[in-house]
Structures are given as C-alpha cells and as structure tokens.
C-alpha cells in the first residue's frame, strides 16, 4: 500500500464545503451560510451576515426622533408598522404620554394587517422554496389587497410611517373602514384555500414534519421568539403577556405547537392569520370616536385649521417642525410582538431632540444562531425549508 492510498483510507470522512448565498433565492435576502457537508448531510453550518448593513442605528444618532420613524420602516421591511409601533411606544414611554384610544385602535388594526401581510409573504416564499408554486401566487394576491389598504390610509403601499409619535399620521375614513371590513370578510375563505393546498398535502408533510426540530428548552435558551418559540410549545406572546397599545381589549388565542418542527411553525403562523383577522374584526367593531393623536402640541402638530387663527398654534407648529420633540433624559426598552417575534427598541435620550442611542432588538438577528443549529444533521434539501420556517428578514438582521 502506498502512502497516498493509506492516506485516503485513513481520512475519517469525505467532507465538502458548500457555500450558500448571499445571492441564493432561498436565503430570503442576502444571507450567506457556509455548509460543511458529509455527503447529503450537513455537518455544520456557519452563518455570515452583514451584507445589508446600512448603519441605521448609527444614522439614528444624528436624526431627530421623528426622522427615525421612516428608517424603522426599512428594518423589518415586510412589517414596517410593527417597527413604527415599537419605536413610538418607547419614545412615548420616555415622554410619559398616553395616546388617545382611537389612535391605539387604529395602530392595532394597522399592525395586525401588517402581520397578515408579512405572514402571507412568508407562506408564499416558504411554499415556493419547498416547491408549491400555486400558494405563492394566491398569497401575493391577498397581500396586494392589504397594500392597497395601506395606500388608502397613508398614501404609501409599503413604507407607510403611519404610526407617529403621539398617535397616527391621519384619521381613518368611513370608506377605508368599509374596505377593511370587506377584506376581513373575504379573507377566511382564502386561508382555507391555502390550507387545502398544504395542510394535508403528503409532499408538504414529508418535507416539513420532524425536520428542523427545536425543543422547548432549546428554543428558550437560543432566544428564539415569536412563532418559532410558540411552535416549540412555549405560550409566550407579548400581546398577551405584556399588553401594549390596548391589546388587553381584544379576545384572541395564542396558537402553540408541540413538536417544534417546520410543520408546527407553519400551523402556528396560519392560525395567527386567523387570530389577527379576529383582532381586526373586534377593533373595527369597538373603534372609539375621538382624536387620533395627542392634544399636546409639543409632541404632535397642531390642527391645520387652527394655524391661521391661533398664534400659539403657529408657534408650536414652527417649533415642532424646526426643532422636533425633546425627550427627557433617560433610557428605556419596550418590547412588542412583531410577526417574527419580539421587536423592541432600547433608546437612550440625553435630553435633546436627537436620540443618543437607538438599538433594535431584532427577532431575526437573534434567531440566526439557533437556525444554524437546526441545520446540523439535516439533509441539504431541508436547509431551505429551515431558513424559510424561521422567516428571517435581512433588513433587521444587518440593520
């Protein structure tokens, strides 16, 4: 036996390094993972992030509070309203102001519609990754309707910046409310349609059940959040545990899974579609009348009509536009439940009109190490399924 032959025999395993991303269509953005392969099986997975780094946290340190809101839209770009809400709630907590009831309800309606839209994109792309093309087209069809609703109330389809400090950008119209009502009447039949295509589909079951399993303890320890945590059997939803923005007024269930595999995450998210619809329905029914933003002109702009008759309103308008809101010195953190899990801003204020530090707690960012842990020992074909089931958005990972 020659030395070379001996070396070949002694080599323990024939591993191959496989690069996936950042331009791979199934990595949902610019996510790169280096897979160490043993045949078809993944030995280890090493994530690489930062390809979409835009320095939003650093830029925020030179922008006034109001100007940070449009940037928060671009973090989790599939559900911009959740980020708006998290940011505004944190600043409002520092300002110690309470927004009117109608604003809270409008915020809830918009956030739940954004959650539905975000879950639809997730279902569309996740199913497409695994090979179910039709679902993709169906989900996009319904998401389009939500984007139209966004446009109708805020003028913008995706990056709405609709939630502002002290309330929302503008009041809803009866016509818009009717459009939302029409949508939530139309939507449940469509969820049934998706479920008919997937829930009992044998190929779907084969590709998702018992794959990417994460136990309850692991999910907590790896700081997973949102549907991934709930699919592992943890009953943790910040809308229930720490009601914010009036969520205590609504009755809804928190769907949880048992096995913590891809299929359970699918079931949890589809159940959340129904629950979100239920919340919107209740919010429309209970929507109170009254102002849609706080009456404090140091936080929100005075009514346009008063500008021509009230000197004080004009001064406030000028001060607020030219200087912005000054936030008392301090720091705080308010978590909210976004479509991907716990979204929260840790904001440090030095007492001026510019934040001293804005830190986003991004659920996708925290989920990436746990996701790569799931990939170990699975087949290469299941890697796309696992990435899809976590529902990462690179905008908030790289910030």
């Amino acid at each position: 036996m020659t030395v070379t032959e001996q070396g070949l025999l002694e080599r323990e395993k024939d591993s191959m390094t496989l690069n996936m991303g950042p331009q791979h269509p199934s990595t949902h953005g610019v996510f790169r993972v280096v897979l160490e392969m043993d045949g078809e099986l993944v030995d280890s997975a090493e994530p690489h992030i930062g390809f979409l780094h835009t320095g939003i946290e650093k830029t925020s340190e030179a922008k006034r509070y109001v100007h940070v809101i449009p940037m928060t839209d671009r973090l989790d770009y599939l559900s911009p309203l959740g980020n708006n809400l998290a940011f505004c709630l944190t600043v409002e907590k520092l300002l110690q102001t309470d927004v009117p009831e109608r604003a809270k309800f409008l915020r809830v309606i918009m956030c739940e519609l954004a959650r539905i839209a975000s879950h639809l994109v997730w279902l569309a792309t996740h199913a497409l990754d695994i090979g179910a093309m039709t679902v993709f087209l169906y989900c996009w069809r319904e998401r389009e309707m939500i984007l139209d609703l966004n446009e109708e109330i805020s003028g913008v389809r995706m990056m709405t910046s609709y939630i502002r400090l002290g309330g929302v950008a503008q009041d809803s119209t009866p016509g818009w409310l009717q459009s939302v009502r029409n949508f939530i009447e139309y939507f449940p039949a469509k969820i049934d349609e998706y479920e008919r295509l997937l829930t009992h589909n044998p190929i779907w079951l084969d590709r998702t059940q018992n794959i990417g399993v994460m136990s309850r303890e692991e999910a907590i320890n790896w700081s997973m959040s949102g549907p991934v945590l709930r699919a592992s059997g943890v009953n943790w939803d910040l809308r229930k545990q720490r009601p914010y923005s009036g969520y205590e007024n609504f009755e809804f269930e928190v769907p949880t899974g048992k096995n913590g595999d891809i299929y359970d995450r699918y079931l949890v998210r589809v159940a959340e579609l129904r629950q979100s619809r239920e919340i919107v329905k209740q919010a429309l029914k209970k929507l109170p009348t009254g102002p849609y933003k706080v009456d404090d002109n140091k936080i929100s702009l005075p009514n346009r009509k008063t500008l021509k008759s009230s000197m004080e309103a004009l001064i406030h308008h000028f001060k607020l536009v030219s200087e912005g809101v000054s936030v008392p010195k301090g720091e705080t953190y308010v978590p909210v439940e976004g479509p991907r899990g716990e979204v929260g801003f840790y904001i440090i204020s030095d007492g001026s009109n510019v934040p001293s530090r804005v830190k986003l707690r991004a659920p996708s960012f925290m989920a990436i190490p746990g996701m790569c842990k799931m990939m170990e020992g699975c087949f290469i074909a299941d890697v796309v399924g696992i990435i899809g089931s976590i529902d990462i958005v690179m905008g908030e990972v790289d910030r």
Partner: protein
Amino acid sequence: MTSEEIVKKVKIDQGEAIHSSEVNLGDSVLFVGAERIHDIAEYLKNDPDLNFDYLSNITGADYLNEEREPRFEVVYELHSIEKNHSIRIRVGLDEEDPTIPTVSDLWKGAHYPERELFDMFGFNVEGHSNLSRLIMPEDWEGNPLRKDYPLTIEDVTFSHNREFKQDLVKSKPPTR
C-alpha cells in the same frame, strides 16, 4: 413579581454584588460591576423565584458626550417566560479596558449580541467562543457605534477629505 419586589429580592440576596438598583419607568434595573456580572446572571437565571430563563437582548452604549464615568455600558434585558417578569442589568465598562465576561454559557442566545458588542463597540468579551467581526467586514478598522467614530465620512481612496474627517472625530456629532 412586580418590579419593586424583584429589586427588593435581589437586594436582599445579592446586596454586596450590586452597586445600586432602581425602578425606572416601571422597569426593574440593576447596576452591576463587570467583575460580578456572571455571578449575578447565574443567580438570576437559577433562582427559582426569579427564573430569568430568556435573554432578550444585549446592548452596548457609549456615554462619551455626557462625560461620565465609566464611559461605556453594557445593558442586558432578561425575561422570565414562566413568571412573566423582566429585569434590566446595566454594567459600566472602563474606557481603557472594556472587558466583560461572556454569559453565552448561560444563554446560548448571547452569542450573537456579544459578537456585535465586539464588532460595534470593541468590547472584549472574555470566554466567548468566536469573538470576531459580525456585521462589519473582517478587515474593517474601528468600531462604528462608538461616539468618536465619524458619522458621515468613511475611509475611501480619496485623500482630500482626510482633514475633514479628523475634525469630525474631535468635534461633537454633526448638525442637529
């Protein structure tokens, strides 16, 4: 437990290890030295009444402009899934030697935010298994979220703006 009860209990159990504690806007906050943070974290995680099993977030902060001692701070946000309460731990770090022990042996979720601390603030996280650049490229110089890191200029091949950059570093943040 309410925030007041948490703070009270921690004070009784770990009185000598914590510098101070407060309830800030309804949140319980502990101030701990870097040398004791691991002990406190372990206590908070394993105490049956507190049971902080979920690490929500780790954040760095730079208080350069406020001219206070110490300059840096690391902030931990913990939740208890079982008990549904939260706590914030603030750890001051020296400018000369910003070193902090890792808590990734307690919560695996700490791996990424601690790497981010190293990347963005240049903190030395002792005991971390893979302390390297996370978001910035591997050959990047400087720590972008420090307050003395220029906001508007980055190193490019031009040389005409080097002086401008130096000015920015010395001065306070640009126009507000």
